[in-house]
């Protein structure tokens, strides 16, 4: 699949996310939009090593995990109609994904815990690959670094850590509020094998997911990617566009 096709899918995923989130104004649209290209690369680019029928994707940043729902629906993990029932009574898709949803593998919603849980899965199933998508602000949780010590010692190379480095926390920029940099060096000192890429560049994503995948990938992303007025604006972490004009603009940009 070429980049244009991947970009088209990514746009469609973002549009669906925008629609289901703005319908009732529930969830974290901003955080969901930043990691879409990473997921599209994994699930749709046939030149990567990822195989969704065998490999497992987990979310540390489960508030962004609805980004996987349109993809799982497209791949027939559940009926597409479920997308219309997102966060509504009777629907199976929740604000934070959990293991009751086909294709999802962890109770989501508490930051800093997914990586430890994933390390247990990876240790018990060395022949299986696990990918965990973490938020950069999730890295403030001390439990993350406890887990990294363990992952490094046990050489759990079947667990790939992808940091959705959109640079924003709930109320501002990470580097202004409480700096995380030099992030790559920090990861390197724990797990050694780390690369930083542009998380919206399908060439870079393909390259990283098709060769020897590093233990940790810092994917520089833009929070709110795809909707110009949301991109990189921290206030949208908990705000979902609600005005007629904002919704119209968002849908136009994603169409």
């Amino acid at each position, binding site marked *: 699949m070429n980049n244009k096709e991947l970009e088209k899918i990514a746009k469609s995923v973002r549009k669906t996310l925008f629609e289901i989130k703005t319908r009732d104004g529930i969830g974290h649209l901003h955080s969901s939009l930043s990691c879409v290209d990473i997921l599209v690369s994994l699930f749709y680019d046939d030149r990567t090593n990822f195989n969704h029928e065998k490999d497992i994707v987990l979310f540390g940043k489960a508030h962004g995990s609805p980004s996987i729902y349109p993809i799982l629906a497209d791949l027939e993990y559940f009926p597409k109609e479920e997308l219309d029932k997102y966060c509504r009574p009777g629907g199976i898709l929740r604000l934070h994904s*959990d*293991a009751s949803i086909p294709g999802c593998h*962890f*109770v989501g*919603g*508490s930051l*800093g*815990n*997914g*990586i*430890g*849980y*994933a*390390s*247990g*899965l*990876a*240790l*018990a*199933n060395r022949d299986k690959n696990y990918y965990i998508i973490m938020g950069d602000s999730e890295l403030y949780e*001390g*439990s993350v670094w*406890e*887990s990294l*010590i*363990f992952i490094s010692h046990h050489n759990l190379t079947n667990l790939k850590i992808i940091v959705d480095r959109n640079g924003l926390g709930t109320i501002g920029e990470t580097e202004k509020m409480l700096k995380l940099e030099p992030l790559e060096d920090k990861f390197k000192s724990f797990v050694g094998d780390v690369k930083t890429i542009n998380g919206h560049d399908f060439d870079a994503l393909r390259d990283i997911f098709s060769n020897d995948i590093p233990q940790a990938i810092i994917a520089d992303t833009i929070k709110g990617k795809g909707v110009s007025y949301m991109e990189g604006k921290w206030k949208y972490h908990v705000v979902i566009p609600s005005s007629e004009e904002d919704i119209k603009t968002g849908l136009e940009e994603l169409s």
Partner: protein
Amino acid sequence: MTQRDTFIEELFKIAKDDKDVIMMSVDMGASSLDQWREELPEQFLFTGISEQHSINLAAGLSASGKKVYVYFMAAWSARCFEQIRYSCALPNNPITILSNGVGLGYAPAGPAHEPNEDIAYMRSLLNIEIHCPRNIPATKELVKLSYKEPKLRYIRLERKYDTRFDLDAGSLHGGIELLKPGLYNNKNRTNKPKVALVSCGYMLGRSADVWERLQSDDVETCLFDMYQIKPNPINNNTFNDFTHIISIEEQTLSGGFGSTVLEGMSDNSINKPLLRIGLPERYIFENGDRDYHLDNNGLSVDSIYSKVEEFIK
């Protein structure tokens, strides 16, 4: 032998035949662990001082079919409360937590090491069982139960306990057991109080001493060991024969053991007076061993006896 070493040794025997049994030490040692580390290194995980990660890791292993036992100091159970709730209770990933040194068991280490609230916070979780074995036979039974019927379990192990109870069997049926019966069973004694002392763990020893003194005072008294905190084992027949119920615990009273008794009674419409005896609502910043602290914080045998005497007057 300690409850901890008994548990680990018994489990070791099972683990030798089952590679899925994993023992995890959160930087805790035990003489019984040495053999495990030497002979079953693949089934031993050292996780360092990382309670949060250790519970998450255990949950992931459990989700993969492993039978995981996490061994740490009871005081640190609060430190990974969120992980126990989030990674184990919510998704129902069964692991066994060996919480060693409950109550004032680590005195004189100070209040940081002395969890006097763990019953209260742990029993607030869903999908969890909480056990307080009184002796070696009960500890061995818990090993079997945890292996055969995996569940999220919080097992409160005593560093020391009253070895008088090692003579008793270790049945786990019912969750509450009549440990010392009343000396009288005379229905004509209608005007006399019939007292049920209810306790668990270390406090059973002091409770037994109080029981003995009350008996010699001609007060019909029974002593119950409520070794299972959750699910609440009290039913509507538990205290049929009694006029006064007294809970005795080495915890503060907010939501602890006595509260469990109170809830059990309330939920079963047992409308009888209950006296809860426990530690005062304060952290103890004083030097002294466990017995010293108990003696000086309202839990000496004399003090408990006086409170009971006043209560049943």
